[in-house]
């Protein structure tokens, strides 16, 4: 008694079947009410967003995060002169719940103090990559359980903001190495930090050089050109791509300018207004990250980067049973994942294998 199927079989995965006939409806049915249903459900569940800030100390990462989310998300720590610089790279994560007009957002910010601060910065990206992959691993483990939760808590890093020091020349080798490795695992948004030390012309030349560097090293930062879905996306995203990396200034103090209270940095030669497009490009960054592309960032992390990780992971377990690269698939404790991380991302398996051989 096989069911008589007149439409294409459900096993085939294709975006939309060209053979389903469009039907005309004579009257209002109410299908678009499903949008309201979705909204209600989303508001009830709340949203999650995980952001990681990477850059050398003193570039204003914590201040930037505070400015972005207009709250004391991170207590910016000014290191005392007495405390020694950290010998190892420690990742710090802080989670907050912020609410605006009934929308709850669970925000997790991961900071990377000590990145690029040592004398020998070789492989300083490994702990970061390890952390990102550990989040993917956590999600994967939850997903392949037999009895799994209704809503898997999402700790995967959705966006990594990379702070480029404002040298004015071009990207340093450390930056290039790091960006190359990371852009395949997570959405990377590079920004020029402390842009108030560059004039507008210097900014433009710096930006051009950085874009040139990125292109010549095949680094695809967010929004990725290869992931544009249709022409609308492409038009919108190419406008953004023209301005990447954004030159930003962070500030969490308010000053009085023309009778208005604005966030800014006060210097002897003037007040740099953070929200003023003529002064810096912070509004662009904020709009990109929060107002227009937040959902897109999460979607790309889930559909592209997580799937890539999953493919590599599942393929690995077939290719290398109990070999030197065997990863114990049982949930591993954190911190143990430093070793096989570099082989996780497929494309960089070759060059990392070379590194490991040394």
């Amino acid at each position: 008694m096989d069911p008589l199927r007149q439409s294409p079989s459900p096993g085939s995965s294709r975006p939309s079947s060209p053979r389903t006939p469009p039907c005309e409806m004579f009257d209002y049915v109410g299908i678009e009410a499903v949008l309201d249903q979705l909204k209600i459900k989303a508001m009830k569940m709340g949203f999650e967003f995980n952001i990681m800030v990477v850059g050398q100390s003193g570039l204003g990462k914590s201040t930037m995060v505070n400015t972005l989310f207009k709250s004391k998300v991170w207590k910016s720590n000014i290191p005392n002169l007495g405390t020694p610089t950290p010998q190892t790279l420690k990742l710090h994560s802080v989670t907050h719940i912020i609410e605006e007009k009934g929308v709850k957002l669970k925000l997790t910010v991961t900071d990377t103090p000590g990145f690029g601060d040592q004398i020998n910065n070789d492989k300083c990206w490994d702990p970061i990559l390890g952390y990102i992959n550990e989040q993917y691993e956590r999600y994967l483990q939850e997903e392949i359980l037999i009895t799994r939760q209704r809503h898997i808590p999402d700790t995967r890093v959705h966006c990594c903001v990379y702070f480029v020091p404002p040298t004015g020349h071009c990207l340093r080798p450390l930056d290039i190495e790091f960006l190359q490795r990371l852009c395949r695992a997570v959405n990377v948004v590079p920004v020029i930090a402390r842009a108030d030390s560059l004039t507008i012309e210097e900014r433009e030349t710096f930006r051009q050089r950085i874009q040139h560097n990125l292109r010549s090293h095949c680094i695809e930062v967010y929004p990725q050109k290869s992931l544009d879905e249709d022409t609308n996306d492409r038009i919108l995203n190419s406008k953004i791509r023209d301005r990447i990396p954004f030159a930003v200034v962070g500030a969490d103090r308010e000053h009085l300018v023309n009778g208005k209270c604005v966030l800014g940095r006060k210097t002897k030669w003037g007040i740099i207004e953070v929200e003023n497009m003529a002064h810096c490009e912070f509004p662009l960054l904020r709009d990109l990250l929060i107002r227009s592309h937040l959902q897109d960032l999460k979607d790309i992390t889930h559909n592209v980067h997580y799937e890539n990780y999953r493919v590599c992971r599942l393929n690995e377990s077939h290719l290398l049973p109990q070999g030197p690269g065997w990863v114990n698939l049982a949930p591993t404790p954190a911190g143990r994942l430093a070793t096989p991380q570099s082989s996780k991302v497929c494309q960089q398996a070759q060059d990392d294998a070379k590194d490991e051989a040394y």
Partner: protein
Amino acid sequence: MAATDIARQVGEGCRTVPLAGHVGFDSLPDQLVNKSVSQGFCFNILCVGETGLGKSTLMDTLFNTKFEGEPATHTQPGVQLRSNTYDLQESNVGLKLTIVSTVGFGDQINKEDSYKPIVEFIDAQFEAYLQEELKIRRVLHTYHDSRIHACLYFIAPTGHSLKSLDLVTMKKLDSKVNIIPIIAKSDAISKSELTKFKIKITSELVSNGVQIYQFPTDDESVAEINGTMNAHLPFAVIGSTEELKIGNKMMKARQYPWGTVQVENEAHCDFVKLREMLIRVNMDDLREQTHSRHYELYRRCKLEEMGFKDTDPDSKPFSLQETYEAKRNEFLGELQKKEEEMRQMFVQRVKEKEAELKEAEKELHEKFDRLKKLHQDEKKKLEDKKKSLDDEVNAFKQRKTAAELLQSQGSQAGGSQTLKRDKEKKNFF
């Protein structure tokens, strides 16, 4: 390599931080909705009911359109499922609607196995989704979800109680799909009978432990309306695609000599309630329940059946992948063993055949040798004989010449020779 030290400060379950200004993430729900709209929605309805209860008509009425399809006959040998997919568009929302209908349900004489094709079909959709999810390279976000989100069970308007076929089928389906029972062709029942009928049905369902879909009442915005609707289950509906002029409006209705039944009149039937509940209020919840409850249950059962567990008896946490890997290795090992065996057998056979062939060859050689020898012997014999014959012939010739010579000598010598000749003759003889 620098060691990783991840310090997570969650602080007794995330503290709420006040915002000092407008950040802008209140547009998040809109972003989410826009994404969903661009992806499109899909909704799958299964209509289960006996032939002639008005399933296709109801679907046409619900979605205000004429779906194609001819009515089924009553002579089907077994229950079959017919499925059709349509693309509906309303303002900017695109819906891929799949309607699956049972054909021949309740028509057979022996209805014991009637529910089986339906259950198999639902399981097949779950299986397809599970396969896609377990693939290594998968495209879940563009996958056409064919799992049944809602099952409308059509109850015949007898006015008494549920048929045993209905009870059995609903019992089998309640753990696999969201069942919404409806009383079909309810213009055949009067109002008082209807209330009694509804009470009887609900009590029968409860006493038999059938779990029908309850509209969710946990969210305040829809709790009230859902709560009241829950009390009206099962909905008594009428379907009609004909439009008649009533008053000064064109309305969907059925005309009888004694009056006209309006489909969208709440006093006449519960059609409007059904449409509200099914489409306008709970479509997303139906999909959610299908995915998080029914599909998860199916997945759990299927994986446990295949032998995967979440925890091992030695309390070592196993994972799906590890057990899968172990099974795969086992399978591969077995495969290899079988291959070896087959190879051995093949080699053996080849050897045997070779030996046989060699034997035959040897035999042939021997035969050939023998024959050859035989021929040689014969040849020799013949030659010997020929030689002896030749010798005889020579001897005879010699004697002939000698005799002639003697004769010629004898005729010259006269008689003296005759004695000698006689002597020689005697000697000769």
